[in-house]
């Protein structure tokens, strides 16, 4: 093979370079369309209100800070920080709940041979496909009768009770992939399940747990319907409700601050995404595919 390369190798080499060029042009075109709204909101947040809709420029001609400094006043007496700390509280509790309850449940499904496991596993998977809306009203009635309206309890109770089937499934798939010799050795050494879970399976399942934690954080941060239904007092509002309130109060007249606040609300999600995107994307892909 090697002896004939020099005269012929030229053409494939050139063709390969052309292929790479075409590929990058195609990928960049898609990228431009996909990132357009993100760059637009970045630019718009520095435009004067009247330019935001009317101006076609992607970036501001003369950047202004007014949109951001306006946020310091808050919305009808409630500071922006209040919305953020409420959201952080919600997302933080959700993460703790999902990590603890889902990993315990997943350990049982993946590592313990108990009667009825397959039936329960099928039920758990079934809840993945169940439209959430059928539970919405009775859950609301339940939490209302228990006196938990206008608290975080209805929003996070499910997280502590492993109702997020997707994450349980993801962790089960991951734990099943761990070498069985490890927990069998632990058992021979006299470890009980609690010990095996805590010292062996949990540390090794870190990728699946981190993926679940990040997804939980982002979902809770973006959650809109839950807070919309359960929270009534503006001082308890999360960022998504704060944004809606902002829109109602200020409307079109203060478009600039609205866009600025939208951008600020996106910051935690985008930061998390940037920091952990490898975990997120691989976790997403493997959860659907591991055998």
């Amino acid at each position: 093979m090697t002896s004939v390369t020099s005269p012929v190798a030229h053409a494939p080499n050139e063709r390969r370079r052309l292929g790479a060029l075409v590929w990058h042009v195609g990928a960049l075109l898609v990228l431009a369309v996909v990132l357009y709204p993100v760059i637009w909101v970045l630019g718009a947040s520095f435009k004067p209100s009247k330019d935001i809709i009317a101006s076609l420029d992607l970036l501001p001609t003369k950047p202004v800070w007014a949109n951001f400094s306006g946020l310091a006043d808050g919305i009808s007496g409630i500071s922006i920080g209040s919305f953020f700390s409420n959201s952080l509280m919600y997302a933080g509790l959700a993460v703790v709940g999902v990590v603890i309850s889902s990993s315990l449940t997943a350990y049982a499904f993946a590592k313990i041979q108990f009667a009825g496991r397959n039936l329960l596993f099928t039920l758990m998977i079934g809840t993945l496909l169940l439209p959430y809306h059928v539970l919405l009203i009775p859950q609301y009635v339940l939490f209302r009768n228990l006196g938990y309206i206008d608290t975080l309890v209805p929003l996070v109770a499910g997280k502590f009770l492993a109702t997020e089937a997707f994450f349980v499934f993801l962790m089960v798939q991951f734990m099943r992939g761990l070498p069985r010799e490890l927990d069998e050795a632990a058992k021979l050494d006299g470890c009980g399940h609690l010990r095996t879970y805590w010292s062996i399976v949990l540390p090794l399942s870190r990728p699946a747990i981190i993926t679940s934690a990040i997804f939980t954080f982002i979902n809770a941060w973006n959650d809109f319907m839950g807070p919309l239904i359960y929270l009534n007092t503006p001082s308890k509002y999360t960022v998504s409700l704060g944004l809606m309130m902002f829109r109602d109060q200020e409307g079109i007249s203060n478009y600039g601050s609205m866009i600025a606040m939208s951008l600020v609300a996106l910051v935690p999600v985008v930061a998390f995404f940037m920091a952990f995107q490898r975990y997120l994307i691989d976790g997403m892909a493997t959860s659907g595919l591991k055998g």
Partner: protein
Amino acid sequence: MTLVKEAPARPAQKRSAAPVAGRRGRRRENLAGYLFMSPWIAGFLLLTAGPMIASLYYAFTSYNLFTPPKWVGLDNFTTMFQDPRWQKSVEVTLKYVVVATPLKLLLALGVALLLAQKRRGQALYRAAFYMPSLIGASVSVGFVWRALFSDGAVVDRTQKVFGLDVGGWIGNPDYVLYALVALSIWQFGAPMVIFLAGLKQVPQELYEAAEMDGAGPFRRFWNITLPMISPVLFFNVLLESIHAFQVFGSAYVVSDTRCGPADATLVYTCYLYQKGFKEAQMGFASAMAWTLVIAVALVTAVLFWSQKKWVHYEEAAK
């Protein structure tokens, strides 16, 4: 979905080599199993199974939260089927599902094919394409969408260049739903990543053999790629259509909390929310919810039935 089918207990795992001795050991394993999954069991009974039974009951009652539910038989369902706004919500939702799901999957597959080639900067592209999937569900992006598609804004002006004048999609009942469709398509990252993982598992030898036989790129795609990734395609079709049936936040935010104008974005869950939480008609809303469950179950069943015809599992080939 392949995995969901395989998942319950692999045969090899069934008889554990570990010394679980006799009946006592088995009983102890059972106890441990149920203790470990007690959060899930509590959650399932309290927040899933219980509420399902309750909502089934509410569906046959008139219930406004303040007075006890009153049994009304099938009244909610007969009123519902004759309700023009309910009919409209079904129409809007079906239109959304049928338009958004295939377009989103097509784009996801297209980009996945692009990214499946080994090129420089691939990981960066992959991350950038995935980002909308994470922020797309937020109220922030709903606002951005309103701004981009409103009268006189970017999309409107771009259209005018091509001689189309609709005065912004947001205010136009004929177009506003497509702004939501666009928002859904924009979030193609999740199915794209799943397609990518599927594409990685296609054995390269198949392509090499096909190329030797003189098969062009289109034939290779049609006869190798598509059948090989059909389980992944099935998984994506199932999940994305089920999600599309349940769209709420974007419809509520983009179309100004009233799911309009003229009920043009009155997706099913938006009407359910209005009925249940604005008008306190919990019975009617529960009847709506159960109708949605049945519709989703039917779609799932049809998809599972159809997969025999077009989904190729490797086990079946052996």
